């Protein structure tokens, strides 16, 4: 998910507060911040997602929950070229070496690292 901090709240330690309050790890994938505001791209464990999103919103943070990535299995040739790019382990092999996408783990549009790595254009952003 993408967290947007406005100028008014950017100097408050909101992220660390929520980590402590909700007792959940928040993995920060990238962050851009200055006095004028900023953005954090982060991942949170699926089971706490709703709760954490609510907490951020209540503190005035704009939360962009990822739109999802879709995989077209007819186009996919199971090459695996996308797998090593995924920071969330959402892409992986099944036992018979088919490549699958676990939408629940995917960070969607806020990540999108795999999309242009797909050799068959089988991975698409769902808007």
């Amino acid at each position, binding site marked *: 998910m993408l967290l947007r901090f406005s100028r008014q709240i950017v100097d408050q330690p909101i992220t660390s507060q929520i980590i402590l309050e909700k007792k959940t790890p928040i993995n920060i994938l990238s962050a851009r911040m200055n006095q004028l505001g900023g953005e954090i791209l982060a991942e949170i464990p699926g089971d706490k997602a709703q709760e954490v999103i609510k907490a951020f919103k209540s503190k005035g943070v704009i939360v962009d929950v990822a739109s999802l990535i879709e995989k077209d299995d007819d186009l996919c040739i*199971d090459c695996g*070229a996308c797998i090593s790019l995924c920071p969330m382990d959402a892409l992986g092999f099944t036992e018979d070496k088919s490549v699958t996408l676990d939408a629940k783990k995917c960070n969607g549009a806020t990540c999108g*690292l795999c999309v*242009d790595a797909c*050799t*068959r254009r089988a991975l698409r952003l769902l808007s």
Partner: protein
Amino acid sequence: MYAASRRNLKLTSNTPDKKRTVAEINEKIRNGDVQVLTISEMKDLVESSGVEVAFKEVDVVTTGTMGAMCSSGALINVGHADPPIKIDKAWINDVPIPHPGAAVDLYIGATIGSETRGFEYGGGHVIEDLIAGKEVELRATAYGTDCYPRTRVETTLTKDDLNQFILLNFRNGYQRYATAVNGRDEAIYTYMGKLLPNFRNATYSGAGELNPLCNDPDYETIGLGTRIFLGGGTGYIIGEGTQHNPKAALGTIMVKGDAKQMTPEYIRGATFSEYGSTIYIGYGVPIPILNEGIVKKVAIRDEDIPSDIVDYGIPRLNKGTLGTTNYKELKTGRVNVNGKSVKVTSVSSLKHAYKICEELKDWIQEAKFYLTKPVETLPTDTVFKPMKVTTETRFVESLIGEAVTCTEDEDVKAVAKRLVEESVNQAIVVDSANELKGIVTAWDITRSVANGNKRLEDIIVRRVYTARLHEPLETASKRMADHDISALPVVDKGNKVLGILTSDAISRLVGGGATG
């Protein structure tokens, strides 16, 4: 799975000298009692029962791989129009199609991109569409001759309209390949896929122990005339592939096959972003178990097949290696790079490699496929030379200038003075060990003075693009243009500043070259 019949065991144990011929195997195929194993099943059998038993019980093993194989294409003959045309330029679905031969013979090159869709659709996609039975649009122009008066033709074609549709690939099936990583601080797009900065992921290619050539590394049974599974149909090896490099265990093959028999499941157009279009080719080779030596060879395991870890961020031919891994480690999904475990995946399809081994096994068992003895085996002594380049290539080291440096704790004024004295536009910020910390430009200083900002540390640009000493000037100047900057600190591996490369110095070189 495999079960040896008693009858068969008796038959093979009668074979003298522990040898078997291709003719004998074909006889068994005809009689329906041939023993075929996929290469994976055979490795397990050798491991559990030993070489002797495996030799007795097995006649053929099937190998396979499916990966991006750029040096591929299809030869088509589109027939003559009335009035006839001697094609000069041709396009299929807007992909330029070379015509290296006579009037209506065309070669669809897998890597040629469409003039309207770029890398997204290329020759590989045209071949896939034709194999899938789709209609494609042919457009051709000509200068017109007395015997070929026509100058234009536009038509639609399917594979049924073609006289010949022959897959003809001049290099396929590398025995093994390197593992690619990227040491630059930006993502790069290569023929090994997308590589994240600072060694954050890795990719590899090839099927490892399933690969045909890996299982017959001395090319004892593989060569000109070997009948193979190619793209779902039958094909033939017609010699060594280009860049065949047997001494480095990097053999390749050249193949042909009737594309009309093939299926899109094993022939797929593909795009490597910012690199180009290509084609995935699935092929499989039967290896006849002619003697116990071959049994030992086909028993090779992934851990015995090495792969060099190569930094594709280095824009040079010789990239050196960061270490060696093997296909067993690669297939676990993680590889050790510079002491760190990173995610690695293949850009070839392992799933299809397994499927090809199974399918070819079925064909042989059902007597749909017979083995051939090659007329000539692949050479084992050819060498692969680099290109002889007669024009000089310039590298960063030839234009590196002395850098004006400063440290973070210096006064803005002092730095400004130095810039004026040395008449340069930027100072490189270093620490006491001469390690790169940032850069300040004359413009940054002017702006900071205007804003009343006196502290150097507030105006330092810390995200600095750099150049390397042995990097070609071409890539360094592209980096400057891409990021709209006029200088790059030149650093060594430890990020220590060696000097500076400025766009001024490059312009002077180009200007000088033009007049001198």
